[in-house]
């Protein structure tokens, strides 16, 4: 690739870094200069990636306003040019980028808002799966209940936020005035897809514990034991069963496995 590789190197370097030693490789005309011709590509590149980010983070864009979002998009693009085949995945680092950059560090909730929106995109096109039906639990002998382990629906994501980003997101999504950002230390949230609709909700401390234990592959018995931090020992199984019923009805659980007595 004697000539093609150096040419592509120079073109890409122009697009990404505005290196202009590429100009001499281009034929200009009286009507349209070399600069204009190159500028069309440069502008298209920046606009396309900006728009891709705006599509993945629509509420962050509303929150920041067009001008600030554009600045953020170009800052991000300079740091993380796309290496994806599909533009759908562009923006995967925006949340950590916001938390690491000096310019945005003063607004720590922005990183969480980005994380919340990015996770929604993951939920949206996560793998399909069957969901466990409540009746299937009825087929499991009571003496095997303690051994039950579960597999969650592939769309389920557990997040922990230190800021009230879901209410901010919801208000902006409903085109109403968002609440002021306030700290909500270690609040557990869950996002998932039921049928084709994305849902999210906050979790109580004990529900977050139960779901996390379930996600780690702990048995129903272990979950019951753990719940004793919040309820009396004789109430733990009832509490765990009630949580389990809620998760199944919400479509969070794909499969159950259990050991025969």
């Amino acid at each position, binding site marked *: 690739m004697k*000539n093609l590789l150096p040419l592509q190197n120079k073109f890409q370097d122009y697009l990404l870094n505005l290196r202009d030693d590429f100009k001499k490789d281009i034929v200009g005309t009286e009507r349209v200069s070399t600069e204009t011709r190159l500028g069309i590509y440069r502008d298209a590149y920046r606009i396309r990636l900006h728009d891709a980010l705006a599509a993945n983070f629509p509420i962050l864009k509303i929150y920041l306003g067009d001008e600030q979002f554009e600045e953020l998009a170009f800052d991000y693009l300079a740091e993380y040019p796309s290496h994806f085949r599909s533009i759908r995945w562009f923006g995967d680092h925006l949340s950590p980028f916001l938390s690491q950059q000096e310019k945005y560090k003063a607004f720590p909730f922005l990183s969480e808002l980005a994380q919340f929106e990015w996770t929604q995109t993951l939920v949206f096109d*996560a793998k399909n799966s069957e969901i466990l039906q409540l009746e299937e639990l009825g087929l499991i002998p009571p003496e095997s209940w303690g051994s039950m382990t579960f597999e969650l629906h592939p769309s389920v994501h557990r997040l922990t936020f230190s800021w009230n980003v879901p209410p901010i997101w919801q208000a902006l999504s409903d085109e109403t005035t968002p609440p002021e950002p306030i700290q909500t230390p270690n609040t557990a949230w869950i996002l998932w897809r039921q049928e084709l609709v994305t849902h999210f909700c906050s979790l109580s401390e004990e529900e977050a514990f139960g779901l996390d234990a379930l996600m780690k592959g702990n048995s129903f018995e272990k979950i019951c034991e753990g719940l004793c931090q919040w309820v009396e020992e004789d109430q733990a199984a009832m509490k765990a069963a009630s949580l389990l019923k809620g998760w199944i009805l919400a479509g969070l659980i794909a499969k159950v496995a259990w050991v025969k007595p």
Partner: protein
Amino acid sequence: MKSDLKKPHLGFGLGLRTDHYQTILNEKPKVDWFEILTENYMVPGGQPLFFLDKIRELYPMVMHGVSLSIGSTDPLDQTYLSELKNLAKRIEPKWISDHLCWTGIHGKNSHDLLPLPYTEEAIHHIASRISEVQDYLGQRILIENVSSYLTYQQSMMTEWDFLSEIAKRADCLILLDINNIYVSSINHEFNAIDYLKGMPAERVYQIHLAGHSNMGDYIIDTHDHDVIDPVWDLYAETIRLMGPVSTMIERDDNIPELSEILIELNHARAIEKSIREKSHEKFIALAE
């Protein structure tokens, strides 16, 4: 990979867009086939694949990609090819197409259809990569001409000679974008009819029609407007030169109601019908 070039005529199709999913399922419009944007369905699950499967039950489809980057000096992306093959298995498209361009090197992607220098080196490189892709997929692919805004000093031939030679050497097919020919003819000051005459008609399996943005001194291929009259004229000329070809309207932005695009599609049908009838009349007159 060699096979005969008796081309199928799918009729008149549209680019499948998310805005129209529900209308298509509810109204089952008179569209002969849909073209999907391949990368939009290279996802694990959820809405995109749900609607894809539903609409596929009702209509034939073709796959149109933007990320093959056939002209790049990076190695072909085997993961991408494998996903492409899996998606093709799922929807059994009439054919698969992508663009005569490169999109990036060193693993980066500009997500733009960047032009190639029209050189022997590029022909050799691209033809061998198309052959590799075709062998992997087990079918011939269609390669589409892109709109371009610059010409390289290196280029040694016209775009149409470049495309024809690649198609011949790789034994691949062509997706001819009439709007792109028009856009490039203005941007590079060539005669669009020369381009059409330079095409190997037997390899042109599909036509794209689209709108663009006129910036005065140059034109940008934005796919966000209706098809303009000079592009319709060029389409008519294409059909006169090549006979009926599977044709579709490609709209990517500023997407109107489906009914509005169907009017454009019917206009394409009418043009083809009129040319077919005229040529039939000529044939009868000659026979008498």
